[in-house]
């Protein structure tokens, strides 16, 4: 598995070379998003008040940010579950021209299909380590703070080699976890057998 250090704005070439399971570190400008932002834009028909052209990395995250002496200070950061945004995933990739989404729990087939079409990848953390990350993140600005609140606002971050993340959806729409699922299913059958539960076992249906 290869390791890459990429800088935003990402190009098609940057993301097309990434393979499932590769490790990436990211630098440059990005923005945060939770479902409230996507609902506000796509369902409630508001206009995104910033341009994503030079900021084409979206991090699914609700950070803890406090204001001290007129400056923002990031207290904690951890990518959150992406799958809950699946409803707007394809639209976000398409309309915001995203090249990378950072989040936990990967995303579904509809988003993966759009990622293939538009050349975009999804990457996941392999640890819960906010303190190893916050020093690599500079808080630049915030949009929609009043409308969406402190957690669900769109925060502008400048990243300095933030990572590691693993590529779990590549720019061809393949999913790392789909492949892992098959191995886990095989091992589960073996584990059940060891517990004395073979393939003939069926739950008695009570309802």
């Amino acid at each position, binding site marked *: 598995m290869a390791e890459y250090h990429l800088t935003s704005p990402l190009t098609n070439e940057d993301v097309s070379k990434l393979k499932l399971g590769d490790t990436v570190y990211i630098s440059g400008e990005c923005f945060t998003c939770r479902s409230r932002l996507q609902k506000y834009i796509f369902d409630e028909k508001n206009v995104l008040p910033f341009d994503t052209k030079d900021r084409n990395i979206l991090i699914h995250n609700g950070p803890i940010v406090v204001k001290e002496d007129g400056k923002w200070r990031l207290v904690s950061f951890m990518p959150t579950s992406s799958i809950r945004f699946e409803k707007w995933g394809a639209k976000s990739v398409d309309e915001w021209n995203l090249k990378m989404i950072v989040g936990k729990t990967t995303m579904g087939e509809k988003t993966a299909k759009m990622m293939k079409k538009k050349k975009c990848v999804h990457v996941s953390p*392999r640890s819960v380590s906010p303190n190893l990350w916050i020093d690599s993140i500079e808080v630049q600005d915030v949009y929609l703070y009043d409308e969406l609140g402190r957690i669900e606002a769109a925060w502008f971050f400048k990243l300095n080699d933030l990572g590691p993340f693993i590529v779990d959806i590549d720019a061809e729409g393949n999913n790392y*976890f789909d492949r892992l699922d098959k191995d886990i299913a095989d091992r589960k059958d073996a*584990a059940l057998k060891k517990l004395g539960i073979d393939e003939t076992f069926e739950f008695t249906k009570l309802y």
Partner: protein
Amino acid sequence: MIKTEIYEQALFETIKRGATEISPDVKDAFIKAIEREENPDAQKGLKATLESMEMSKVRENPLCVDTGWPIFYFKVGNQCELEGGFVELENAARRAVARATELGYLRATMKHPLTGYDPGNNIGMNIPDFTYQFVDGDFIEMSYAAKGGGSECFGGTRHRIVAFADGIKGIEKFVLDSFVASARAGAVCPPSVLGIGIGGTANVAANLAKEAACLRTVGSKHPDPMFAKIEEDLYEAINSLGIGILGAGGSTSVLAVNVEYAYTHIAGIACATSTNCMVARRASARIDADGTLRKMTSPNWFGDR
């Protein structure tokens, strides 16, 4: 009589400790998992998580950005007297949660379920949640657990009535199926502390599962060999699956499997699971009748386990 200012300060300090300091038993489980882990990337992930958690204590910041549902458990002596009574205890807990949120130890995470309104202090209808256990004595013990959205929202809490005809096999298959589904792609933030409730009505099983996940000392065993065997068998079975830290592959998928039980109806066995995320945040403290406060390293909710 225990003064309000004493128990309110104890509540605040317990919340802060639960949010920012790794429990000693969880730390031990991490150290063992790092030694045992066979996947080098997963091992790096476990090390990075432990390193970050150690830094939280120094930096006094949350162990994870999602500071979860604020949940309180009180073990109360039958002769315990609190200034203002138990209504004031709950008011003090709400004030302590609001203060911890204002100071950045907790994220403002609790919202109105329909409107999405964010009060900004984690206080709202039926939140925080309070559970009581009454025992002999004149003291009060308090545990604060922060139940994360990942472990709670993405399938970590499940329930099924298993027929007596299916017995232990049915219970174990239900648990294994549930855990694999909920840990996919790291949804419940594995390696988990997996709590299992067996028996009672569905809500009793679910409460036991949550308490087994949040309040048992990691590494403890059920004193009844029948239940200890289920814990051990499922621990081995789940750790053989290769799910790993955040579901990306590895040999550590659970830090512990804890089972608690209640008697059940002749018609069926209610079974419930509750996963706690790897950070497994909690803290406990005890106040004696004379107002002496001491930190507890274990919640003592299930006695010495």
